[in-house]
C-alpha cells in the first residue's frame, strides 16, 4: 500500500488568495500574511508539562509537541494520515512496514535526520521506565530496525492496516537518537524551542530550515490559564490572541464581541459504563433499560448547551466515514426503561453512580439521568468524587461509573482500545468473540467496502451488547481574536488537532511585544 503524497495545503490557500486579490480583504479570504507573534492560552498548565513526546498527555503538551516535533506521518482535518517525515510508507500484508525518510531533514541542532533516529524514537516507548503514554501500542511493534541510512523496517506482531494512523499519534514524534534530556526540544518541527518554563510559558521561534511549508508566524507563545473566567478575560482584553476550550456559556458573548469560534466535531465522549462482570451489569435487561433512560437531547441541550452531537452507544462519531447511519440512537423511552429495569430485578434499588469533574460533564449527565430515573420512580445516588486520582482510583472500578474517552486516530484503534476482550481499557469488561474476530479482520483488510461493512457490524455489536452508554459526543470550542486567520474546525480535536501553529496567520502583522 502506498499513501498519497503529502497534500500541498499551502498551494490551495495561495490559489484562493490570488482569487481574492482583487477584492477587499474579508474575513479569512485575504491572502495570508507572513510574520507576527501569536499568544495562545491553553487550559492545563502544570509542573508536569514535558517536552518528551512519549510522556505528552495534556493539551498544552500536544501543542508543544506539534510546534517542535514531527512524526513520520501527520493526521489531517479528517484524521487521514498524510506523509510527514516519511517520504514513502509501504507494507507487506500490513505486517512489515518500510519507511523511507525525507532527505535532508534537519533537527534544530543542525544534524540530519536518519533511520537511526526513527529506530530510537519508536523503540524507547517499549521501555517501561520511559513511561510512555503509548506503551501498549508500541508493544505491537515486534522489531524496528534501520535497513539503510534512510530506510526503516518495522515488523508488527499482527497485521494492522491502520498502522500509519498510529505513527501519526503525536507521542510517536521523532526525536534525535540518544536523547535523554528533555528540558529542551530538539526536533524537526516548524518552530525552535526558545524558552520552556513548565507551568509558566513556552516560546517558539520560526525554524528557517523547516523541511515543510514555512509557517506564517515569526514566533508563538503558549501559556496556560486554568481559570475559565481569567482565560476569557485575557482574550477579550487583548492579552492573548487565541484560547483553547471556550466556555459554551460565553460563546454568544464572544461572537457578539467580534471574536471567532472554532467548533471542532471531535470523537471525544463522556460515557457511563456498566461493569458487565459486577452486580447490575450481569443483567442484560438492566443495561438496556439504562440505555433507554438517557434523554440524549436533554443532555445535549442542558449539559453541553447544544455543543455536542447525539451518540448511539458506540464510539465512532457521526462525522467518521465509517459511522453506521442505520444505527439510530435509542429514543428516551421511560416506559421501556421501567419495564426492563423492573425485569432486571434492580428496580427499587438505589443505584450508586460514580462521577467526577475529571470526566467532562459527567456530574451533570448523572444529574440529568437521575432526573429521568425519578420520573419512573427509580432511585439513583449520584456519587461525585474528586478529580485527583480519578483515573486510577475510580475509573473502570465502579459498577456504574463515568469515563471520558479521547478518540484514537483510526476506528480500529478506538474500537480496539475500548472494546476488545483483551484490552485493559475495556471499560465494561465486555467480551465478544465475534467482535474480536472482526477487529483482527479489519486490521488486515485493505478493501474499503469490506472495511466499512465490518465497522458497521462492530458498531451494532457494541451498541446492543456492551455496557458502555454513550449519550453524546462533545464538540470542542476554541475562541480567537478577530485578527487571527487560517483556523478551521478539525475532527482531530481542538485547535486543529493541536496543529494550528502550522496554518495560523495574523492580519495587521502584529509584532512581538518587547
Amino acid at each position, binding site marked *: 500500500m502506498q499513501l498519497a503524497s503529502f497534500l500541498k495545503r499551502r498551494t490551495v490557500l495561495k490559489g484562493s488568495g490570488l482569487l481574492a486579490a482583487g477584492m477587499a480583504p474579508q474575513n479569512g479570504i485575504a491572502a495570508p500574511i507572513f510574520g507576527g507573534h501569536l499568544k495562545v492560552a491553553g487550559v492545563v498548565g502544570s509542573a508536569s508539562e514535558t517536552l518528551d513526546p512519549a510522556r505528552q498527555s495534556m493539551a498544552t503538551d500536544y501543542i508543544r509537541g506539534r510546534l517542535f516535533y514531527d512524526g513520520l506521518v501527520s493526521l489531517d482535518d479528517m484524521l487521514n494520515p498524510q506523509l510527514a517525515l516519511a517520504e514513502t510508507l509501504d507494507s507487506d500484508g500490513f505486517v512489515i512496514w518500510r519507511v523511507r525518510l525525507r532527505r535532508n531533514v534537519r533537527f534544530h541542532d543542525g544534524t540530519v535526520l536518519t533511520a537511526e533516529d526513527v529506530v530510537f524514537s519508536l523503540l524507547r516507548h517499549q521501555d*517501561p521506565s520511559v513511561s510512555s503514554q503509548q506503551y501498549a501500542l508500541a508493544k505491537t511493534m515486534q522489531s524496528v530496525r534501520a535497513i539503510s541510512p534512510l530506510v526503516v523496517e518495522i515488523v508488527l506482531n499482527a497485521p494492522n492496516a491502520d498502522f500509519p494512523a498510529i505513527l501519526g499519534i503525536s507521542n510517536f514524534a521523532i526525536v534525535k537518537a540518544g536523547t535523554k534530556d528533555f528540558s529542551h526540544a530538539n526536533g524537526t518541527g516548524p518552530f525552535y524551542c526558545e524558552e520552556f518554563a513548565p507551568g*509558566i510559558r513556552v516560546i517558539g521561534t520560526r525554524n528557517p530550515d523547516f523541511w515543510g511549508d514555512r509557517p506564517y508566524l515569526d514566533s508563538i507563545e503558549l501559556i496556560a490559564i486554568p*481559570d475559565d473566567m*481569567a482565560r476569557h478575560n485575557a482574550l477579550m482584553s487583548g492579552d492573548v490572541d487565541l484560547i483553547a476550550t471556550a466556555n459554551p456559556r460565553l460563546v454568544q458573548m464572544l461572537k457578539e464581541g467580534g471574536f471567532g469560534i472554532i467548533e471542532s466535531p471531535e470523537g471525544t465522549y463522556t460515557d457511563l459504563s456498566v461493569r458487565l462482570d459486577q452486580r447490575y451489569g450481569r443483567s442484560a435487561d438492566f443495561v438496556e433499560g439504562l440505555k433507554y433512560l438517557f434523554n440524549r437531547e436533554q443532555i445535549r441541550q442542558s449539559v453541553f448547551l447544544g455543543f455536542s452531537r447525539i451518540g448511539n452507544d458506540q464510539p465512532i462519531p457521526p462525522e467518521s466515514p465509517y459511522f453506521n447511519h442505520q444505527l439510530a440512537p435509542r429514543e428516551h423511552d421511560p416506559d421501556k426503561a421501567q419495564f426492563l429495569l423492573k425485569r432486571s430485578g434492580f428496580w427499587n434499588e438505589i443505584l450508586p453512580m460514580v462521577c467526577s469533574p475529571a470526566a467532562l460533564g459527567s456530574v451533570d449527565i448523572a444529574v440529568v439521568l437521575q432526573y429521568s430515573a425519578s420520573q419512573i420512580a427509580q432511585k439513583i445516588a449520584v456519587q461525585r468524587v474528586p478529580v485527583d*486520582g480519578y483515573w486510577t482510583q475510580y475509573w473502570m472500578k465502579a459498577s456504574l461509573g463515568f*469515563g471520558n474517552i479521547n478518540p484514537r486516530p483510526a476506528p480500529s484503534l478506538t474500537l480496539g482500545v475500548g472494546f476488545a476482550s483483551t484490552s485493559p481499557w475495556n471499560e465494561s469488561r465486555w467480551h465478544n468473540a465475534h467482535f474480536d474476530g472482526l477487529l483482527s479482520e479489519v486490521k488486515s483488510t485493505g478493501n474499503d467496502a469490506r472495511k466499512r461493512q465490518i465497522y458497521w457490524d462492530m458498531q451494532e455489536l457494541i451498541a446492543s451488547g456492551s455496557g458502555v452508554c454513550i449519550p453524546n459526543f462533545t464538540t470542542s470550542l476554541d475562541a480567537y481574536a478577530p485578527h487571527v486567520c487560517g483556523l478551521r474546525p478539525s475532527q482531530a480535536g481542538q485547535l486543529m488537532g493541536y496543529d494550528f501553529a502550522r496554518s495560523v496567520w495574523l492580519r495587521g502583522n502584529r509584532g512581538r511585544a518587547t
Partner: protein
Amino acid sequence: MKNSLPKLIGKRCLAAATSLVFVVVTVFAVTNILPGDATDALLGQNATPQTVAALRHGMGLDQPIFFRFWSWLWAAVHGEFGHSLLNGLSVADAIGPRLHNSLLLAGAAALIAVPASLFLGITSAIWKDTFYDRIVSIMTLGVVSVPEFVIATIAVYVFSVRLHLLPAIVDVGSVHSLGQFLYAFFMPVTTLALVSLAQMVRMTRAAMADTLSASYIEMALLKGIGPVRLILVHALPNALGPIVNAVALSLSSLLGGVVVIEVVFTYPGIAGLMVDAVSSRDVPMVQACALVFCVTYLILTTFADIVTILSLPRGRKA
C-alpha cells in the same frame, strides 16, 4: 536585662524549629494518605501495570513510607530538597523563580499596605468616633467583607476587558522596566494591598484606641505634652505589640494565601505551585513549598514576638 535577650531569641527559635518538624511530618503524612500518587498525574488514563510499576520504582515510591520520609529529611537537613517527581527538575530550581515572583508581589503589596494601614489605623484611633473614623471603618469593613476574587474580577472586567487600560494577566517575563512593572502589577498589587490593609487597619485602630484611653495618657496630656510626642513616644510603644502581630500575620498570608489572586491574574507564584503539586502528588515539591511557607510564617511571628517583648518593659523581665 540584655543577657536574657539572646536566651529569649534562642527559646523562640527552638519553638520555631519544633513547629517546623511537626509541619513537615504532617504534610508528608497527609500527602501520602491522599488517594493516588504521582504516577496518576503522569500516566492518567493510559497507565498500564508495567509503566506504573517502572515509574514507581524510578521515583522510589515502591519503598516503605518511613524510609522515604527519612531519606527526604536526611537530604533536606543537608540542604538538598530533591527533584520533582513529575519532571525531574530540581525542586530548588522550580521553586526559585516562583518564590521570587511571590516575594515581588507580596513585597510590593506590603510596601503599600503597611504604611497606609498604620497611618489610617493610628489616625482613626486619634479621631475616634469622628466622621473620619466612621468613613475609614466603613471602608475597611467593606473591603474585608468582599472576597478578593470579587474585587480582582471586577477590576479586570473594568480596567482590562472594558477600558483596555491594564492587562488581564500578569506576564512576569515581559517586565523589564519600572513602567512595565507598574503596568503589569498595578491590579494584583492593589487588590492584595486592599485586602491585607483592612485587617491591619482594624487591629492598629483597636490597639491604639485601647492605649489612648489609658489613664497614663490622660496624665501625659495633663502634663502638657504635645500631640505628636504623645502618640509616638507615649502611646505607640505600648500599642506596638498587637500592631506588629497583626502586621506579621497579614504579611505571612500575603505569601501563601494568595492562591486566588494568582489564579485570577494567572500569576506564576509559589502558592499555585503548591496547589498544583498537591493535586499531582509531587511529594518533594509539596514538602519544599510547605517548608517555605512555614519558615516565612515562623520568621514573621517570631519577629513580632520579639518586638512585642522588647517594646514592653514587663515583657523583657519575663
